[in-house]
């Protein structure tokens, strides 16, 4: 696990990142609310720099069974991966929620892949897109793909990176008030990506603190 202080965020940067994540996730939650017509209850986002192995362990503290996830990678000024994760035993309940509850079970099973994909696409784009907008940058977000397995398998989908390498790990869990649906949003960024993020966070902090965010007036 990397504990290099040059790569960790300072308090103000950490605050700014939490703020961005909060706003991004709230946007995503509003979108989900609209799709499931139910209140979405969000945890406080946790932000940490850990190894990928540790990130998998953190997820496993919440869910010990098999998981299904919508995965989208993003690149551009920031690079990383975003996942919307559900316990596999629960996924049909989500599908039922987003299809409005008036479809027969066989249609729900047929649509599971699609419904998860589309839901994930909306939530992850909502979160990433909002963060990108606030940082005044743009991201290319990949098409959603469905992954199944353990938390280790979900976080290591391309097998290319070292599981001991440090990542910025953002993790939020949510439930629906009136349905037995619970899920997780996870964002991971490799440390080179974290450097780019620090730069953008500093620019964001400057804009927020000198009050020029809304309007730029030429002298």
């Amino acid at each position, binding site marked *: 696990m990397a504990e290099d202080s040059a790569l960790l965020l300072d308090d103000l940067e950490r605050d700014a990142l939490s703020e961005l994540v909060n706003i991004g996730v709230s*946007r995503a939650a509003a*979108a989900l609310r*609209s*799709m499931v017509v139910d209140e979405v209850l969000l945890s406080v986002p946790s932000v940490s720099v850990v190894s990928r192995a540790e990130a998998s362990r953190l997820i496993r503290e919440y869910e010990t069974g098999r998981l299904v996830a919508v995965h989208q990678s993003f690149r551009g000024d920031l690079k990383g991966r975003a996942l919307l994760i559900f316990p596999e035993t629960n996924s049909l309940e989500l599908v039922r929620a*987003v*299809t*409005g509850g008036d479809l027969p079970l066989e249609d729900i099973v047929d*649509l599971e892949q*699609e*419904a998860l*994909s*589309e839901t994930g*696409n*909306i939530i992850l*784009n*909502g979160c990433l*897109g*909002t963060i*990108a*907008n606030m940082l005044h940058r*743009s*991201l290319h*977000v990949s*098409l959603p793909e469905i992954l199944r397995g353990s938390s280790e398998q979900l976080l290591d989908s391309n097998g290319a990176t070292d599981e001991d390498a440090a990542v910025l790990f953002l993790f939020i869990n949510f439930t629906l008030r009136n349905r037995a649906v619970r899920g997780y949003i996870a964002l991971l960024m490799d440390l080179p990506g974290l450097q780019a993020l620090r730069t953008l966070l500093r620019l964001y902090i400057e804009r927020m603190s000198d009050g020029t965010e809304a309007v730029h007036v030429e002298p």
Partner: protein
Amino acid sequence: MAYKVLVVDDSKLARMAVAKILRSLQPDWTPVEAANAEEAVAALAAAKPDVALLDFNMPGKDGLSLAADIHAAHPGMPVAVVSANIQTEIAVRARAAGAVFLAKPLTEQALGQFLEGARVQLARD
């Protein structure tokens, strides 16, 4: 006047959701579905829709390119790009391609406003 609405999205669920909202807003209008840009082009020729709703992020040609093509070939057709990708850049590019940008998930209110604008535009032309 009953219009035909081309709905282009690789997600069947998304097409279902749009068709459902369309049915409740304008029960006499007909959705024409296509899963990608290629099918959309075929549907434009065969069904001659009056309005188009295009998903942005699809395999193959994306919705923004398709919007630009439609705008060139059918300049009077009201077109909306519908996307989960709510980044500013996408909305700006949609407008540059002569289309309205609508965020996913599509609400009755958002689609209703767009369809009302489309109806007025089509009645005028």
